[in-house]
């Protein structure tokens, strides 16, 4: 969510904290729950390894697929490793990769869209058709081919996530930019003689931030699910490291016993994605209160 603070017009400094508490108060209950979940997972990603009770790869229990216990709060996995430690470490990969991927996709898409809207018709047409072509590629298949060709690595996963979700972000940003381009205030700036890039950067972009932020949240969820899917297939983050998706996969044999080792990572993915969605839905939408009297 760094994008918001970087790009939105900076509010006056002293009022920022008060602004945040005010936002929190205007957030509906579901939004608060969502935000809390998101913050929880971000904290888990950042500080998880420090508070984890055991080494990630260490086999610390003789008993596999153990249930909840004081020594292993979330049980042990199929090799007898501590599930809590592994989930905390997996969160780092899932949240970090998804955040970076979604951020790259959203900023690239928005930048390209603004460039297309600011440039003439031909640039716009060419870029839009190229993006349409990219949208038509099935993302999972593309990912499979790329992993097969280059071998799985963290940078490659990031590139896959970005390439897959740039066209969607571009589409949304471009349609926003095109309609904002027709607004009177943009016309007024144009009549003043402002250059295209000033129009795109100063007049159009600030009014796109809110919808693009919502879009960013959705893309984040998509990337989480895609990475988890890839890891579940064994093509994502490679052992000994593991993201939440790989944790689910490696422990599937515990499913029959209802072992926490398989349920907990799945629950982690669910709470993360649902939390982001609840938070986005709770964000105030512009224009909702503009229903004044005629």
């Amino acid at each position, binding site marked *: 969510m760094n994008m918001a603070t970087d790009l939105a017009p900076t509010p006056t400094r002293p009022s920022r904290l008060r602004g945040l508490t005010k936002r929190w108060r205007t957030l509906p209950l579901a939004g608060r729950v969502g935000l809390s979940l998101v913050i929880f997972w971000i904290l888990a990603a950042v500080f998880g390894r420090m508070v984890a009770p055991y080494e990630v790869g260490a086999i610390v229990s003789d008993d596999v697929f153990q249930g909840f216990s004081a020594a292993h709060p979330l049980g042990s996995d199929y090799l007898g490793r501590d599930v809590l430690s592994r989930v905390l470490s997996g969160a780092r990969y899932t949240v970090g990769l998804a955040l970076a991927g979604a951020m790259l996709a959203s900023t690239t898409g928005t930048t390209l869209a603004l460039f297309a809207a600011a440039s003439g018709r031909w640039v716009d047409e060419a870029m839009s058709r190229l993006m349409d072509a990219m949208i038509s590629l099935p993302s999972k298949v593309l990912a499979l081919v790329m992993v097969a060709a280059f071998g799985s690595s963290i940078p490659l996963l990031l590139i896959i996530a970005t390439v897959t979700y740039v066209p969607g972000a571009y589409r949304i940003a471009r349609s926003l930019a095109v309609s904002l381009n027709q607004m009177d205030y943009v016309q007024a700036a144009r009549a003043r*003689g402002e250059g295209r890039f000033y129009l795109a950067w100063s007049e159009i972009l600030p009014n796109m931030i809110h919808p693009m932020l919502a879009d960013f949240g959705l893309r984040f969820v998509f990337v989480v699910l895609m990475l988890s899917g890839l890891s579940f297939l064994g093509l994502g983050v490679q052992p000994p490291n593991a993201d939440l998706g790989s944790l689910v996969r490696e422990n599937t044999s515990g499913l029959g016993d209802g072992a926490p080792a398989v349920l907990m990572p799945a629950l982690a993915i669910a709470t993360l994605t649902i939390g982001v969605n609840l938070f986005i839905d709770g964000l105030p939408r512009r224009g909702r209160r503009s229903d004044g009297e005629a």
Partner: protein
Amino acid sequence: MSPLVEVRGLSVAARDEQGAPVTLVRDVSFSIPQGEVLALIGESGSGKTTIALALMGYARAGCGVAAETLRVAGVDVLSLSAAERVAFRGAKVSYIAQSAASAFNPSKTIMDQVVEPAVIHGLMSRQAAEAKAVDLFRSLALPDPEGIGRRYPHQVSGGQLQRLMAAMALITDPALVVLDEPTTALDVTTQIDALRVFKKVVRERGATAVYVSHDLAVVAQMADRIVVLRQGEIREAGGTDQVLHAPSDPYTRSLMAAARPQVRAAPAAAASSETTPLLQVTGLSAGYGRPDAQGLPRALILKDIDFAIQRGATLGVIGESGSGKSTLARVIAGLLPASRGQVLLNGQALAPELARRPREQLRRIQIVFQNADTALNPAQTVSRVLGRPLEFYHGLKGAAQQARVAELLELIRLPPAIAERRAGELSGGQKQRINLARALAADPDLILCDEVTSALDTVVAAAILDLMADLRRELGVSFMFISHDISTVRAVCDDILVLYSGRTVEAGSRSAFQAPPFHPYTDLLVASVPEMRRGWLEETPVRRAPAPARVAAGGSLCSFLDRCPMRVDGVCDVTPPPRVRLSDGSQVLCHRTERQLAAAGAQRSEVGAR
């Protein structure tokens, strides 16, 4: 007999963003006897629509309605269950909204939608409802009453659509009709027809009606009684004559005063005609779409326009929607390149395209848009909105820029604290002032004002007009004032240009526009402005143009041909009209002689005076 509508102690409250309660309507009481029309009048935010909607048992999301008594046609509206309310609305009470265009579903035929209330309430069979609809179409003076139902909403004009919505509202023979600003979005020439048929239908059917409006002159034609509202409270209530002629409340008096525009023209800057005019436009044509073989766009909006604006003078451009008046402003500002003709600023030709005009030329001409809500960037503070042109044209930065912003705010009579607000935190009038200030920041010679007062309440609009007059006096800026309202234009402009479908049909000085002779279209415009007295509507003669002329559409024939009540068959539909200079100095595009035009105008005003 008890009155049809009885309202006692009606209050409507909502909560603002912080959750604090806000009272929209406070302790309002009135009653309407069977067959009478009650007008609710007030500015935006006065609660007039909220009250009207409460009569239907409807409150906008988040609003709560409370009343001691709220009875409509013997029904206690507030105690209805959801199912009873469904049966009540549309059958007992019906609603005619301001914008018919957005009230109709574009994908269904008109007949489907007009009969819908009767059919879904099970009041009539589909066939009976259709027969009744055709009846209503006829009494609403719609063309082709049998066939119009088969059309889709986009195939009829705005005025016709408004009348069709009236048909939809009346088809169930409701006890009460709520008309919410039904003619506000219409051109004056269309409004008068709509008012006429509304009145006729209401009288014929003995319907009881609530007429919501901000326009006293319109209300004077329709209502038996008037309730004046301000900020959710009744300021005055009484018979139409009493409220209009002997208003007891100071607020009503201020409304009346604002509705009659006073002459605000500054002494026309002693512009001697020898000097080069500030702006001269010659043979200007422009439009939208791909250019054809002659270099003219497919949809030609402006045809061969000539005019000049002297330094310090104000030119009024008037015409109905679609006449090309906004396009004219866009062409002069360079937003739409002209396809023919020239625009000279101080004798220097301006490039048609914006990109090829030097910044200095751009600075001299500024444009102010109609809709203040969309003309200010919601993401920018006022100081940024005003600061940017200062930086862009004059290189002002930092403290010097902020000092100039403060000066500009003072110039437009706004407190300096407003500089840190964003557009969403300003009122409509404040936004329009900032809009003007942004143009002033460039220190321009000419400001193009596109309907700058149309979306504002009368009192607020009057204040903006005063401000413009002051600016002319203090800064010597010239204005091009675009409007659809001839009385405003006559009050503020030195010269006036009347546009009709992209052609100048009349051009002259303000004094020439005070009395006939007029071009027939100007005459129609002047005659269609409602006067603030009862009976005006009845006294104003219905002016039907003869059946539409069916001629090979010659591009240069008179464009007003089909609607002209003074058409000369065999002349007007054959030869293009000449441009005639009348003795009062104005130019008219018409075949009729000055004497004939004067006689027609005089006859009308005589009928009006009787």
